[in-house]
């Protein structure tokens, strides 16, 4: 307000331009051909906004700002250079950092403004701090589970939902009290701590298989807390960025929840129960057909169309580069090779595409579930590497199955199915897969990387 009019206008214009660039950035991200331009636009917008902010006449001292900007950049570089398999935990960590920033600023703003905080400001400030603090600890927990520092198994106890919801209710109760009595500053740290606790408690019952949904949800919370901060600071740029991030996380959560067959309310409230392990799996000894690498290579080499279905097991075995060699060997023989990507393949939305792109597999060969499913009846061989539940036909046909209703890749409609698998042990959800017992299915037992390597050797050694 004390700013000379001209400077204030310049700052506002940089913010406006930055907002436009942010929206263009996401628009250009829609296709791989323009996506990198999107990154440039985002960077430019960010640079403009920061430069504009530094013009702010209210700033009396630049020392700590400069130190913090440099330190942040130094920490940011290694976080931008992590291995592609580690991108999910890096993303969770950056949600935590974003939420950390928002929570700290919210806390500082509260103490600067108390005892006189206008009601609406106090309401959004509470929202900022509650969402920020729960996203902070929740994301740290998620990162820990993804990094396998924390146990991936869901930890549940009786009355868990009640405890969690009560915690949240107390935090919201305090927020309401603060709106009415903003001078009661001793309650503020209580609200903050409950938010931090709730973040931990929220993630404890969630297992590794649900991580793609959780990450998306935390993404959405991070965005909403930033938008709330925008309301507190009366910054439209922040409101816009927060709203974009919030809706992005929201859309991804909905896509992930659909792919896992979870209801919409489940996503909104973050109440993910773990999948009940099927208790009475009728374990009569059923027979499977097996094949050697040599036989598999002969069948693959003679096929016209092959669809490879990669799962996270492929990435765990670090087999994506061998898979790429297989792709090359088959393509050279004139076989049409495509990849079928289930939305929850990998550990965060789109993760599998990144892992395959890293192995230099062209992205026009990577097809999503809705595109590839109608093609399966014309496919000669479906080769499944490290995927299990997303190929289980029980999801279509067996209402008693815990995964019933989950959209799956219709691999069983292909003429021949091959499954590379270590053993007959069941997947994440602990469910037997009927696919393995079909007459058309060949089980290829072994380590994914070694087995694919053997197939490649057979294919390239035998002929030209």
């Amino acid at each position, binding site marked *: 307000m004390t700013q000379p009019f001209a400077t204030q206008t310049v700052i506002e214009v940089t913010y406006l331009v930055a907002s436009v660039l*942010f929206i263009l950035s*996401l628009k250009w991200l829609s296709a791989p051909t323009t996506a*990198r331009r*999107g990154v440039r636009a*985002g*960077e430019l917008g*960010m640079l403009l*906004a920061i430069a504009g*902010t*530094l013009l702010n006449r*209210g700033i*009396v001292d630049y020392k*700590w*700002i400069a*130190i*913090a900007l440099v330190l*942040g*950049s130094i*920490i*940011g570089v290694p*976080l*931008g250079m992590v291995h592609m398999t580690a*991108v999910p935990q*890096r*993303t969770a960590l*950056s*949600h935590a950092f*974003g939420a*950390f*920033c928002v929570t*700290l*600023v919210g806390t*500082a*703003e509260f*103490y600067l403004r108390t005892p006189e905080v*206008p009601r609406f400001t106090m309401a959004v400030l509470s929202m900022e701090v509650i969402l920020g603090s729960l996203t902070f600890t929740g994301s740290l927990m998620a990162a820990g589970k993804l990094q396998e520092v924390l146990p991936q198994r869901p930890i549940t106890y009786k009355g868990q939902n009640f405890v969690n919801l009560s915690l949240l209710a107390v935090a919201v109760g305090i927020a309401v009290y603060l709106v009415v009595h903003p001078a009661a500053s001793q309650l503020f740290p209580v609200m903050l701590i409950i938010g931090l606790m709730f973040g931990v408690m929220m993630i404890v019952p969630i297992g590794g298989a649900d991580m793609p949904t959780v990450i998306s949800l935390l993404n959405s919370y*991070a965005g909403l807390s*930033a*938008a709330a901060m*925008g309301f507190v600071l009366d910054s*439209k*740029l*922040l*409101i816009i*960025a*927060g*709203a974009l*991030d919030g*809706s*992005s996380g929201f*859309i*991804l959560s909905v896509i992930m929840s659909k792919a896992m067959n979870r209801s919409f309310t489940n996503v909104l409230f973050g109440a993910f129960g773990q999948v009940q392990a099927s208790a009475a799996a009728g374990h009569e000894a059923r027979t499977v057909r097996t094949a050697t690498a040599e036989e598999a290579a002969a069948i693959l080499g003679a096929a016209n169309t092959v669809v490879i279905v990669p799962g996270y097991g492929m990435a765990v075995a670090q087999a994506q580069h061998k898979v790429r060699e297989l792709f090359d060997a088959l*393509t050279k023989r004139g076989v049409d090779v495509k990849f079928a990507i289930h939305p929850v393949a990998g550990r965060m*939305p*789109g993760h599998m*595409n*990144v892992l395959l*792109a890293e192995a230099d597999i062209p*992205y026009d060969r*990577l097809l999503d579930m809705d595109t590839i499913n109608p093609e399966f009846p014309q496919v000669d061989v479906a080769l499944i590497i490290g995927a299990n539940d997303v190929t289980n036909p029980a999801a279509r046909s067996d209402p008693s199955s815990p995964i019933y209703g989950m959209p799956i890749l219709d691999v069983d409609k292909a003429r021949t199915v091959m499954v590379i698998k270590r053993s007959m042990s069941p997947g994440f959800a602990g469910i037997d897969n009927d696919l393995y017992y079909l007459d058309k299915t060949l089980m290829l037992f072994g380590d994914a990387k070694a087995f694919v390597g053997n197939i490649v050797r057979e294919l390239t050694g035998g002929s030209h």
Partner: protein
Amino acid sequence: MNSDLINNLYVFVLAGFIGFEVIRRVSPLLHTPLMSLTNALDAIAVVGAIVLVGENSGVPGAKSKLATILGTLAIIAATSNVVGGFLITDRMLKMFKVSNPKKP
């Protein structure tokens, strides 16, 4: 104040709609870069932290001191998201290539 609030609500709702329409069109291929990019953009919160530190550092009083410390930490966290987020997004996008017919 009141009209500011209404204006901000308009901005929030409209930006939400734009976000929804734009992001709905992002190919599932690019959902991971999408998340890392929105994360980097979200770190625009750094501008709030910069103003906070700039207005309070060096100003006497416990509240200003607290604001300076919290704000400095906030700038560090947000800047690392800006740098790391843009960097990894670009690294990922660089890897997405079409099949090249120039195979020997």
